[in-house]
């Protein structure tokens, strides 16, 4: 299209001349005839000036021109641009004057020459080289892009002194230009004194453990580079190694790291240098905050998750970090999810009886906040707020609002556009659930707009007859599955491949029409899945979601039929460790649901080549993937096989297979058993207890302690097993877990242990009960998060 468009200019020129020639027959005016009269002078001057103004603005502001970006330039370079533009404008005025005096032809020629010269002069101004006129006009190096650095500490800590290559630069947060930075900080090819040298045989660049307080940070900057193809010099972003130190409250930071990033255009680059480290002052505050946070959660557990507004306000002081932490714990403690919802509802005043106006205000607030943050995700606090408030909003109002955003070029890129899209998506789902066979307002109004914007991914998610018809018709036109010859209109460049865009989106769509298409074009969809999975850009071999859409077909489903191929492809996946490969195979089987049998899971174990040493920890990592109903039978088969291997080795070296002693080959067996114990399998616990309980109690205790102490929320099933055990040491261990996770179920165990037959257990239980009582009585005002620094 563009080449036609560009060809249009000369073609139009030819047409115009041809037309005008047909108008004219050569006729010489007498020399005495006047050149112009008032009307002609005014008209031609106005036309020439108007057209000239448009051309001048076009060249100076939109094409190569940077008149609207003067603030980004160095003053000398900006001034050069202003002067050149002023000269061009002066010539435009001269041309207008010529036209006024009846020399319109000359005026047009003059103007054309000026504009061509002006365009050539400012063409790709940031480059040096023989072809770039600006480099000869502007003061030397004034065209070098401006670099701005912002130095900050990751967690927003203020007042941290930053030293780079031994030079003090300032206290965070601070900004400086690239010129200032380069002037102050000398680049060192060798690490400064005090920075540890790599041990012999280890390349210095790979050595990441400096002595003292030094740390290496890669700071991005710009560098001149010869651009052979353009016969000039370009400026490219490049990372360089610097050696940094940070100091806070008179103390050097330890275990520090630093990163930098950012970007810009030809003229200005804005980079952020983020540094992070540990200071005893802040670490202490961090530790205290962590304790307060845990106590706050314990208070909620002790109150059976019935928390008041004051408690929520206290949790709110932990901000985003608190949100993320509670979210993580809630993965194993569902009651906390409800607390998260209560937090969100409290913060935004969301209630069942709230009005549309109030909901609209909440939405506006959220949009405003995310626009300031320039970031939004569905998992965030705001994301959950949207999920809770969306159905209180008027769908027609939201549709209109989002339509407006889609039609506005500026608003589409804002973070609030993502918020509104989420509202739209949630409403679409709700409307589809209510009336699946009816085309809803979103599918009628939003989907067409998204198609017009060629945002087929979003359009396909919302669905509706428009997108179905559109994709089906496009696919009718172009059925080739892949290849660059599909052309940019028809291909989706994904994972290094040019895939048929229409097939790709149709494969991912979920609707009766799409389902029918997927059934009819099963072979093509399978081929697409094969292309996506067996692809060097998808080294994890993640299977596409659409492969699992027709599981209702049972053994005739695509995923079931593809299983053998997938299992084969996964052998060459990354990471290539055996436990990762096993996890991927089991993951795939998990997605097959009831179609995956126990034998299939066991088969995966058998065919996975365990070429690396069989470490129990890795085995546990893989076993976690197993679905609850398959854990015990599959693990038992694995245990049996591993036991066989261990016993065989015992026999080989002449050991008694029934003797209890530490034997290295037993480690994966024990870990597999331990995995079952954590899942609440008493039989496995008895097995372990029988094996280690008598002679090697400390070893067993150590292993169990790891499961209790290292976890913020130890499994209730494990606590139960420990509390019931005949060994008082293990019963005491269960108390440690209860101290951390004082749920109602665990408190019941505590009550029993308060009356334990063993004095030591009773005493420990009393202590735990007293601690819990203390937490219960602690006012929430004492559990507020304290800011880390000033």
């Amino acid at each position: 299209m563009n080449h036609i468009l560009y060809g249009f200019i000369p073609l139009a020129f030819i047409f115009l001349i041809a037309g005008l020639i047909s108008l004219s027959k050569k006729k010489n005016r007498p020399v005495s005839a006047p050149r112009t009269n008032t009307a002609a002078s005014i008209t031609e001057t106005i036309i020439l000036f108007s057209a000239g103004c448009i051309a001048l603005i076009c060249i100076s502001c939109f094409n190569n021109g940077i008149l609207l970006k003067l603030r980004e330039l160095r003053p000398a370079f900006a001034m050069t641009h202003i002067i050149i533009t002023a000269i061009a404008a002066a010539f435009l005025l001269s041309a207008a004057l010529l036209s006024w005096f009846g020399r319109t032809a000359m005026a047009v020629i003059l103007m054309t020459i000026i504009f061509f010269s002006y365009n050539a002069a400012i063409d790709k101004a940031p480059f040096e080289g023989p072809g770039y006129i600006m480099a000869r006009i502007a003061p030397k190096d004034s065209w070098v892009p401006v670099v701005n650095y912002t130095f900050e500490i990751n967690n927003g800590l203020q007042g941290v002194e930053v030293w780079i290559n031994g030079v003090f630069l300032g206290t965070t947060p601070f900004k400086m230009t690239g010129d200032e930075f380069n002037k102050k900080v000398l680049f060192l090819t060798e690490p400064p004194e005090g920075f540890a040298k790599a041990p012999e045989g280890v390349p210095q660049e790979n050595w990441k453990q400096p002595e003292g307080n030094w740390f290496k940070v890669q700071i991005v900057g710009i560098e001149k580079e010869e651009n052979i193809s353009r016969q000039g010099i370009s400026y490219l972003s490049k990372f360089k190694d610097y050696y940094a130190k940070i100091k806070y409250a008179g103390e050097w930071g330890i275990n520090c790291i630093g990163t930098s990033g950012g970007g810009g255009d030809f003229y200005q680059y804005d980079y952020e240098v983020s540094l992070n480290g540990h200071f005893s002052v802040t670490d202490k505050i961090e530790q205290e905050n962590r304790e307060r946070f845990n106590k706050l959660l314990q208070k909620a557990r002790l109150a059976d998750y019935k928390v008041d507004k004051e408690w929520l306000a206290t949790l709110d002081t932990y901000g985003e970090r608190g949100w993320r932490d509670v979210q993580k714990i809630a993965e194993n403690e569902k009651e906390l999810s409800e607390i998260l919802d209560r937090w969100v509802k409290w913060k935004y005043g969301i209630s069942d009886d709230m009005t549309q106006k109030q909901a609209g205000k909440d939405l506006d607030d959220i949009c405003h906040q995310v626009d300031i943050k320039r970031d939004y995700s569905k998992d965030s606090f705001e994301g959950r707020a949207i999920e809770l408030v969306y159905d209180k909003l008027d769908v027609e109002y939201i549709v209109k609002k989002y339509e407006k955003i889609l039609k506005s070029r500026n608003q589409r890129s804002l973070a609030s556009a993502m918020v509104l899209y989420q509202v739209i998506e949630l409403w679409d789902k709700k409307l589809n659930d209510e009336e699946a066979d009816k085309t809803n307002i979103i599918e009628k109004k939003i989907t067409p707009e998204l198609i017009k914007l060629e945002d087929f991914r979003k359009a396909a998610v919302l669905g509706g007859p428009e997108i179905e018809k559109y994709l089906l018709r496009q696919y009718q036109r172009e059925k080739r599955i892949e290849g660059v010859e599909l052309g940019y209109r028809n291909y989706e460049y994904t994972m290094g491949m040019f895939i048929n865009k229409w097939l790709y989106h149709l494969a991912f769509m979920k609707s009766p029409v799409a389902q029918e298409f997927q059934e009819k074009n099963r072979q093509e969809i399978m081929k697409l899945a094969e292309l996506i999975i067996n692809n060097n850009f998808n080294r994890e071999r993640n299977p596409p979601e659409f492969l699992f859409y027709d599981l209702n077909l049972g053994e005739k489903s695509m995923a079931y039929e593809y299983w053998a191929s997938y299992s084969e492809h996964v052998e060459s996946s990354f990471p290539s460790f055996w436990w990762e490969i096993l996890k991927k195979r089991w993951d795939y089987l998990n997605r097959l649901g009831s179609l995956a049998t126990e034998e299939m899971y066991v088969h995966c174990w058998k065919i996975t080549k365990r070429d690396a040493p069989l470490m129990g920890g890795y085995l546990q990592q893989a076993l976690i993937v197993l679905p609850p109903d398959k854990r015990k039978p599959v693990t038992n088969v694995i245990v049996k096989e591993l036991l066989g291997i261990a016993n065989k080795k015992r026999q080989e070296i002449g050991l008694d297979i029934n003797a209890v002693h530490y034997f290295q080959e037993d480690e994966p067996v024990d870990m597999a058993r331990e995995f079952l114990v954590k899942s609440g399998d008493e039989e496995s616990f008895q097995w372990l207890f029988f094996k280690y309980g008598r002679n090697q109690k400390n070893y067993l205790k150590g292993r169990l302690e790891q499961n209790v102490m290292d976890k913020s929320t130890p499994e209730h099933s494990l606590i139960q097993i420990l509390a019931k055990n005949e060994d008082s040491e293990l019963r005491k261990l269960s108390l440690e877990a209860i101290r951390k996770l004082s749920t109602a179920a665990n408190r019941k165990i505590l009550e029993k242990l308060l009356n334990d037959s063993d004095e030591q257990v009773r005493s420990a239980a009393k202590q735990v009960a007293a601690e819990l009582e203390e937490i219960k009585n602690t006012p929430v005002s004492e559990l507020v998060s304290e800011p880390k620094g000033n």
Partner: protein
Amino acid sequence: MKIKMSLLKIMFRETLPVTLITLLIACPYALFTREVLNWQNPWIAIFILAHSIAIAALSGRYRSRSFAFVYTRGFTRDELWFHKMLSTALSILAVWLPVSLIVWLPVRSLIQDKLFISPYFPLMMIREASVPWVWLGGYAILLPLFHYVWIRRAQPLRGENGVVFLAVGVVIVIATLMTFRWHAQWFRILIYCLSTVMIITCLVAGRILHRTLEVQ
């Protein structure tokens, strides 16, 4: 000013061949072109340019006999200018309106949807609806300018070729603007304002100069 139907007919007849030919080109194109119409379509831009040149060329044959005949029948210059502009408007409407109706009524959309099984229709019908107004805008800029060109050339003044260069320059500027996919809001407003100034200037100056044009 009263509209004189006989004069209007004569003037309209001058451009009739062009009107018929362009109608025969434009209607099938509007019906059958599979691309979604937009304001940047280069073929339509060339068509409007050629159509405008043809209308101006046929209306402004000031050295022809027929021209001299009409101009010596006792009509005032202003009456003649007014009827020329009116006939020009009618010639444009005769082509623009049927094509626009094809776009606006679901004729094009139906043909594209049912006959060509186009994925774009009826989806893009709404988007195409604004395009005929851009075409009309193109005519509105070019025709007053081209009429001004022949009127200026028919004056007993020197420098008659300058105005041709000027018209070429304006067309090149318009073509350049078309190569940009998007214009900033403030720049669009500026273009609308300057275009309006140019149109009004060309019409007013054309009317004034028309009073003094030489008829041979």
